[in-house]
């Protein structure tokens, strides 16, 4: 009898302890879970904030680049054309009607060209022109501006069915295109710039190549000041879920390859 009583006591105490243990486990698990959930949410907010800052920075850089292009275009191209038209008109001789007629015709052509160039420029002053024109058209326009300088030949190849990417991704990609083109103009001594846009099902490929002097990409692997712009481009591509690859051979040129999966 005494043994049975002890067993009953043991069972009740053990049952109570197990229930208390279960209750304690539930509460501790709950508190730990909530803390980890909060930390995770904070990390996501930081990433979102960082992403937005990068987008904003890219927008500002595009605006800056656009204004630089406009300034260059007005100085180098439109200014020259209008100066030539003015010179033509200034040297017309009323006593030589045939020559005068020819000069007037030439001036008309020059002024028409200046008007067209100004129209083109006004398009690019609209900061949403990437969204309006589309990514491929915006890239084509950039190449046209470079070709107009007369120092480069440019080629744009588009394959596959062009489709619209997300606005923020197009912005980042366009900024990268501008930076690569800037680097080519400043450093490569190239004569030919080729951009290939390939729209495959589920993935978008972009390749920018030049036939310039190339460079040694080894210092890029090291954490040095050299290649800061390229590392910046790499970080931006990672931010939008794309892959960035750069290859270069001395005297043969450089190739920048970017691949971006489409998201539904």
């Amino acid at each position, binding site marked *: 009898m005494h043994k049975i009583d002890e067993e*009953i*006591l043991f069972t009740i105490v053990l049952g109570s302890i197990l*229930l208390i243990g279960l209750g304690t486990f539930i509460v501790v698990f709950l508190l730990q879970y909530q*803390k980890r959930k909060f930390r995770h949410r904070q990390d996501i907010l930081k990433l979102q904030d960082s992403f937005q800052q990068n987008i904003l920075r890219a927008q500002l850089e595009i605006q800056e680049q656009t204004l630089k292009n406009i300034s260059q275009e007005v100085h180098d191209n439109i200014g020259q054309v209008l100066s030539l038209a003015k010179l033509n008109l200034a040297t017309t001789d009323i006593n030589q009607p045939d020559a005068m007629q020819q000069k007037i015709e030439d001036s008309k052509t020059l002024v028409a060209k200046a008007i067209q160039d100004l129209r083109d420029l006004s398009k690019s002053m609209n900061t949403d022109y990437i969204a309006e024109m589309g990514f491929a058209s915006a890239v084509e326009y950039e190449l046209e501006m470079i070709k107009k300088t007369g120092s480069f030949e440019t080629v744009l190849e588009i394959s596959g069915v062009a489709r619209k990417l997300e606005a923020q991704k197009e912005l980042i990609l366009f900024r990268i295109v501008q930076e690569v083109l800037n680097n080519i103009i400043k450093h490569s001594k190239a004569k030919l710039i080729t951009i290939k846009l390939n729209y495959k099902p589920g993935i978008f490929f972009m390749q920018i190549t030049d036939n310039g002097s190339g460079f040694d990409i080894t210092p890029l692997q090291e954490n040095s000041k050299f290649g800061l712009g390229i590392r910046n481009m790499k970080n931006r591509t990672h931010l939008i879920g794309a892959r960035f690859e750069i290859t270069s051979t001395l005297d043969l040129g450089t190739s920048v390859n970017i691949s971006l999966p489409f998201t539904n």
Partner: protein
Amino acid sequence: MVWYDFVGSGLILLCIIVILVRYPLLPHEIRLFLFYFTLNFLIEIASEFFSSKGQNNLFLYHILIPFQYAFLCYYFLLLFDQTKNKKILLVSAISVVVVLILSLFFNSISQYYSYASMMKNIIISVLALIYFRRIFISNVNFENHVEESVWVCTGLFINSLGNFFIEGSMNYLMETDRSISIKLYYLHLALDFLFSIIFICAIIFKKKPVA
């Protein structure tokens, strides 16, 4: 009066003092525990009075448990913000009142209140779990500070789970083997002390809001 009566009454009194001292900082639902502990304290004093006269004092706890349950129901009603949970609470309140009345047919007023206690413990455990579920799915931040209600519900949860078997078997054991019932009663007291200590710590360690 034996030592555990002193400790029990002392802890209840300490709870009352802590609530009064930190009253301006406490949310409304925690302030209500002032009534809860005051009622408990008065019942303990009355129980000691009857016990010293050699009279059965168990009838006091038959009266106390419905009031305790009603109070805790109201406390959870203030904590729950979803209408669905409030409906569950009201249904449980009505059913428990019915059961508590019916339990008098099983445990007379002079016997230990096992059925009433078991019912109360089950419902309080379920209500605490509903509250924890709400915390689980919410975006509340526990990085720097855990709300007092979380600790109070934890104390109620552990107290109810632990007391389920103990109080449930108490009436039977008191009639069959008193020595075991006395040992289990110490465990029951320990759980009550634990709840009081958790409550006191939750109030004392409450951070003052930053101005």
